């Protein structure tokens, strides 16, 4: 099987160093404002600091993928005697909670690693090294992955059946 290079972007979160200042939320929300830096609103930030100050819990979570359905169950972590809220570490934008959604429309927010910048801005503003950015190349097996079109067609096939789909394609071919 052929090998190929893949770029992996990582933000390491040193949760023990977080002091809960939320500078990451502020820079994120203003960077992603339209026009850029025209407004601030931490509720729109794609990084959110989970804080229970008296419980000694402070750590940022970076917004991940939109999840159309909720998980079959929920996770609850206890680490070094500290009990974290349900799904505290989860990055998904999901129907069970408000985190990582535009406050006015509910549309999902996702971290884009501040495309175009040298490193994500949350990393740049964190002076306590809670957030550390790393970019590396990984060699992965080049799979014979179905491409996007094939995937979409497969979805249509699953929904409507081969016969119907073939009919439509034939009709469209005639017209063209």
């Amino acid at each position, binding site marked *: 099987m052929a090998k190929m290079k893949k770029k992996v972007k990582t933000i390491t979160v040193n949760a023990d160093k977080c*002091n809960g*200042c939320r500078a990451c939320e*502020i820079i994120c929300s*203003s960077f992603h404002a339209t026009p850029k*830096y*025209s*407004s*601030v609103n931490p509720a729109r930030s794609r990084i959110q600091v989970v804080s229970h100050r008296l419980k*000694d819990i402070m750590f940022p979570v970076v917004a991940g993928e939109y999840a159309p359905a909720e998980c079959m169950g929920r996770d609850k972590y206890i680490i070094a005697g500290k009990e974290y809220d349900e799904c505290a570490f989860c990055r998904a934008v999901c129907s069970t909670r408000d985190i990582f959604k535009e406050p006015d429309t509910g549309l999902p927010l996702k971290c884009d690693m501040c495309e175009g910048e040298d490193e994500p801005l949350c990393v740049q*503003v964190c002076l306590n090294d809670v957030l550390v950015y790393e970019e590396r190349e990984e060699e992965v097996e080049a799979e014979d992955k179905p491409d996007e079109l094939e995937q979409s067609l497969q979805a249509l096939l699953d929904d409507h059946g081969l016969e119907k789909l073939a009919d439509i394609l034939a009709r469209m071919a005639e017209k063209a």
Partner: protein
Amino acid sequence: MRYAETGYNLEIDLSTGNIEKVATDPALMALHLGGLGTDLKIMWDRVLPETKAFDPENLLIFSSGLLCGTPVYSASRTVVTTISPQTDLLAYPLMGGFLAAELKYAGYDKVIIRGKASKLVYIWIHNDRVELRDASALKGKGAIETQELIREELKEPKAQVAAIGLAGENKVFYASIEQSRSSASRLGAGAVMGDKNVKAIAVRGTKDIYLARGDELMKLMARARAFVQHRNANPLQIAVHSPQHSGIVGSTQEMKYTDESWHTTGFAWGNARTRRKDFWTKEIEDNWVNSQTKAIRRFISCFNCPQECGGLIDHPGVPRFMMKCFSKLTYAMAAYVDDLDFTWKICQRAFDYGLDSFSTPQVLAFAVELYEAGILTDADFAGCPTDQEGRFLWLLDRVARREGIGDLLAEGTYYAARKIGRGAEAFDHNTIKKHEQMNIKLGMLDPLYYLMYSTNEKISITQIEGNWPQGAIASREEREEFIKDWPQLPDEKFKQYLLDWEPRGEKANPFYPTPEISSEIVDWMETLHNIDDALGLCAGWGSFILKPPYHIHNYPQIISAATGLALDEAGLKQIANRNRNLHRAFNNRRGLRRADEKPPADHWKHRYPEYEEELLTAYYKFKGWNNEGIPTKTRLQALNLAYVAEDLERRGILTDGQDEKES
């Protein structure tokens, strides 16, 4: 479009339950900025001199600063403005934490509270939804505990909550308002909140704050960030007396550093009485380093600030709490307790009661002295443990609950002394304008501190000083080195003042800096504080430390980029001056006069009464005030405050011809 500010205040009348969102006049920013500045305008317009702290007409304003909620670093401060039960003058304690920004994101610059609720309530502000909620279940709960209970009740872990404890509910004159790792402590705003029957104010906001020229602002902030990063790696050395203050950017670094040799040997113990010059031994150092290192679980910051001035405290047998600044020393020193473990115990209890860490230890130490002098008796102290720690904890409980002797002590040393009588008045030796001061007693009169103690509206010295070294720098070489890198200065002439200022000899305290130079330096320092308090910036980034990241040459750029206001240095100074004079006039209208403007008699051993009067006169003249410390009509008119002059004239406080005769 309004930039940096929301353009709305929330007006709450507790007596009627009426809640209104009121658009503010956009012109006010150019006149007063925001924060304390616009609070002063509201207080002047709406709180008459006859109104007392516990009258329903007294306002209690929770205000964000102009830059709170923007990306400007350290713009975290909430200013609480009201009439003080202790001084009967304006109180404006500030706190950091997270409330001010959250209030902005909820869509309000200020919450203006008037009247009194018929039963204990808390205010819940969630964007456009505002409610007065029943707080009867929170009655008697601690100020720290209450914040957690409210977040749980609302199921809003991201709500920011400011709360009072038992002391506020019981209207202790020096009750604080606690919020996250911060508190608005001085002058009894917590008592006013208690009197209004408001247990807490909880806020959650998810709206936008707009920036006029965000790109430009971000560049300025990148510079500020680089500055702080550099200073963190290279702390200032010259003119820095203790590692805690001014070495790096931020509020006093009491959590980060353990070496307390300077404070514990230089400041006065007990009821601001005794300096213990040999206190800091190896044994003490070991105990304190060990105690502090073990107690601090994590360093904590305020909103949008990388500096870690607070600490999460986890000490065996003590519920967790957050701590900052000088409270680490005030109780231990006032109680003559040498073991730092005591600090964690008593501070947790005091913070949960919601009590000011400067006034309270002084009041308790005052009570102990009265007992030792036989003025307070065994009957007053019935049930009190005999050890120093136990006695302080017992007294703290009495004060917060207003039980027995605590009921008198709850009014502070000034009023308690007069009610107790029998010579107790002589033990009230460390107050200015009826307000307890820092526990410092020194040798030689210092002209700068004389003026700051005497005249500043804050009535709390730690929050007035800052950009100028606390004492003359010993060697000429070091002075030359110090002035080399000092771009923060408003004028080059200050460099010469510093070069000339020597620890001893002719060019030393008390006669140098001269009254005129002293006035210039003091005016300069308080201008910075006035700017910070209007903008909602932490004084640890500007007015309170040597060579800070924010200064007169970049404030205007920062303000302008955030708000769109066209502003230069002269314009900013004019606004600060306007705010200061309005502030002064507000207090003058309530009776403040020259006779009130004096430090404690024993603050210095060596005093010069006639020269001190000269100092005060020179300062008043510099400020454009008359001989009684009241702004003249000319000065007020020049600051667009003609309406203030007219009011003072109508009341007979300013009279015709006074300008020429006395200023």
